[in-house]
């Protein structure tokens, strides 16, 4: 199309000009955030589930402090329904990077009666209490999370540095201004901040970065054969925490996971993508969001994520 464009210059930088590519600009922003929080706060912690977003965040943290080690521990809120290969990957990664791992266990809470299993079997919403207790117990004042704004409409509203009151609650109607790239994590005693260094990354950015940096991931992100059954339009894995009902039939399919969460409610997608490059192509062509494709719990209600976040969820 020919147009009398209002701006005479080209938007595409000329050869040799200093411009950061999109991935480099995102990386620079994330490292800035991670360093600033580590410097301003006394007891930060990074939420590490073994999922791709938290792995990318950890990779960025390693770059931010190199050649010093990452100067804070990592925390996993273990639902007790995790994929075993993700837990194995989590432990390998912690070992490889020499990190200190804290685990807050939903199972412990269920065993001693502090939490009760939900009727629908999903344990995602049950993570909030153990998370908040761990934050209080360790007096963590900054909690890095791998949330991205493109994931969900309530997350799209959240600041990079996001205040939580003494009950761990998020108040979406009264967020602190966040100006330029000057981050302000100050808070009163008892409050803490959640920090989302990869807020501005999309799922595609994450995969392009994993490909570019050759970051190892848990194997279930890549196509593999698995016994699955169909529920709510998703392929759920047959496993100790998710069993087919009588009217659901088990099939072996070539699948991979776009997100890894609680086994009982995280769906696999049919895919033959077995390399990062193939996944980048697949994600670029996808017409469903990763949550829409894979998370049963987010379909419960229009505002499921917002309600959980207000209570202190990730």
């Amino acid at each position, binding site marked *: 199309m020919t147009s009398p464009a209002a701006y005479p210059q080209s938007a595409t930088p000329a050869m*040799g*000009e200093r411009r950061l*590519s999109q991935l480099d600009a995102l990386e620079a922003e994330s490292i800035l955030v991670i360093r600033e929080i580590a410097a301003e706060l006394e007891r930060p912690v990074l939420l590490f589930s073994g999922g791709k977003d938290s792995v990318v965040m950890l990779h960025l943290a390693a770059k931010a402090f190199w050649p010093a080690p990452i100067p804070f521990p990592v925390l996993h809120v273990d639902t007790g329904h995790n994929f075993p290969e993700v837990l194995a990957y989590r432990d390998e990664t912690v070992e490889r990077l020499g990190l200190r791992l804290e685990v807050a266990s939903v199972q412990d809470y269920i065993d001693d009666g502090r939490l009760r299993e939900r009727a629908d079997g999903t344990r995602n919403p049950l993570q909030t209490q153990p998370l908040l207790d761990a934050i209080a117990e360790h007096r963590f004042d900054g909690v890095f999370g791998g949330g991205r704004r493109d994931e969900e409409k309530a997350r799209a509203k959240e600041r990079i540095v996001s205040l939580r009151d003494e009950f761990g609650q998020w108040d979406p109607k009264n967020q602190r201004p966040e100006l330029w790239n000057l981050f302000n994590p100050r808070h009163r005693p008892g409050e803490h901040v959640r920090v989302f260094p990869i807020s*501005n990354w999309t799922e595609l950015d994450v995969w392009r970065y994993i490909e570019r940096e050759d970051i190892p991931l848990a194997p279930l992100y890549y196509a593999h054969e698995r016994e699955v059954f169909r529920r709510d339009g998703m392929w759920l894995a047959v496993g100790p925490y998710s069993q087919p009902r009588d009217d659901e039939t088990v099939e072996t399919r070539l699948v991979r996971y776009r997100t890894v969460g609680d086994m009982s409610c995280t769906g696999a997608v049919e895919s033959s993508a077995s390399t990062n490059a193939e996944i980048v192509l697949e994600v670029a062509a996808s017409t469903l969001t990763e949550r829409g494709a894979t998370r049963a719990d987010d379909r419960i209600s229009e505002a499921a994520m917002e309600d959980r976040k207000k209570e202190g969820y990730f």
Partner: protein
Amino acid sequence: MATTITATTLTAAAPGATTAPVQPTLLRLATAGSVDDGKSTLVGRLLHDTKSVMSDQIAAVERVSRDRGLTGADLALLTDGLRAEREQGITIDVAYRYFATATRSFVLADCPGHVQYTRNTVTGSSTADVVVLLVDARKGVLEQTRRHLAVTALLRVPHVVVAVNKIDLVDFSQEVFDRVEAEVQAVARDLGVEDAIAIPVSALDGDNIAERSDRTPWYAGPSLLELLESIPSSEDPAHEAFRMPVQLVIRPQGAALDPSHVDYRGYAGQVASGVVRVGDEVVALPSGRRTTVVGIDLGERTLEEAFAPQSVTLRLADEIDISRGDVIAAAADAPAPTQDIEAVVCWLGDAPLRPGQRLLLKHGAKTVQAFARTIDGVLDLDDLGAVPADSLSLNDIGRVTLRLAAPVPVEDYAVSRRGGAFLLIDGHDGRTVAAGMVGASLRTLDPAPTRPEGDEEWDI
């Protein structure tokens, strides 16, 4: 533009090295304009018409729209994601959305129009490369239009596009468009915005959003998307002086990941402006000690040069005293640290600012105590000039004189957005109460600075 620099200046054979010219560049866009002028609808339309909305998201929006008895999908729901926003039909806080075309990646910040949420609009615009200011063709310039344009001008957002919206409701009239455009341009000129470009659009129907409309045959310019794709990317940092606020000193000692790094000492930060090369002479501020850059690291990679906005770690020839908050700057062209600042602030605190008040000021990686000496005026949105004031209230834009407890190497915001921007923070509860711009000024209608009562000689 400097085009003589070699294509790849990175020494290590990094995977996916930087500066590849074929990569799409990132453009950050923020919406502005009065409540209900159609900002969210426009962002939704832009996403929808560029096929950037996933099918499950559009299905969710269609479902909610149907439940409310609407015939079509209300595209504003793509960004108005909070429960309270959907109940009230307004935007409360910024929503960030992402989409890409062949040449550009966009971060869209859909900001609220309501005066109560101005601080959120300031948040969204502070990082913007372009502000799209919406004006309802039927209503023309309103108070919030003026306020947002004033904020945009003060923040020195590089580009402003005026979307004269709801053109469908004025019969696609050129006369109305011309009148509204003239009205907006007059305000823009008064505020020092010279190059705003206006487009007639219907966010609801998509006219002149992604495609040019045949319902405005009298309009020969580009669609909004075409315009956004043609906005030049930011200036080459080679034109700026080098500055880097030090966020952290990296000294692993015995904890080094590799024993060869036990003596490593590096200064970590994001290059705020300009370019730094190995061998450059630099100065640490505020101490004024000089040294030379001997190495630049980005993780394990070693670079020959770094430029804004890369996050890197600098190694220096001498072990001079540099700590967090100091600024490393080009030795030949360094700003003078000062304890006295004149600035324009957008006041975002619920309680007013009064002369004599103590606050914290954050600039770069440095936070110092600050004292409001005087309030030198507040912007009157009708006259677009400063009038005398004793205090600044929520959402006021005012000029203040501050005294700092320690010297800080600020720059004029007009010269460097990064070097001239600061936050004012309430030291008691940690809240961010102002966005500040060093050296900015308001057109003065009647300057009559107020003094702190009975404490003329107060010094920190």
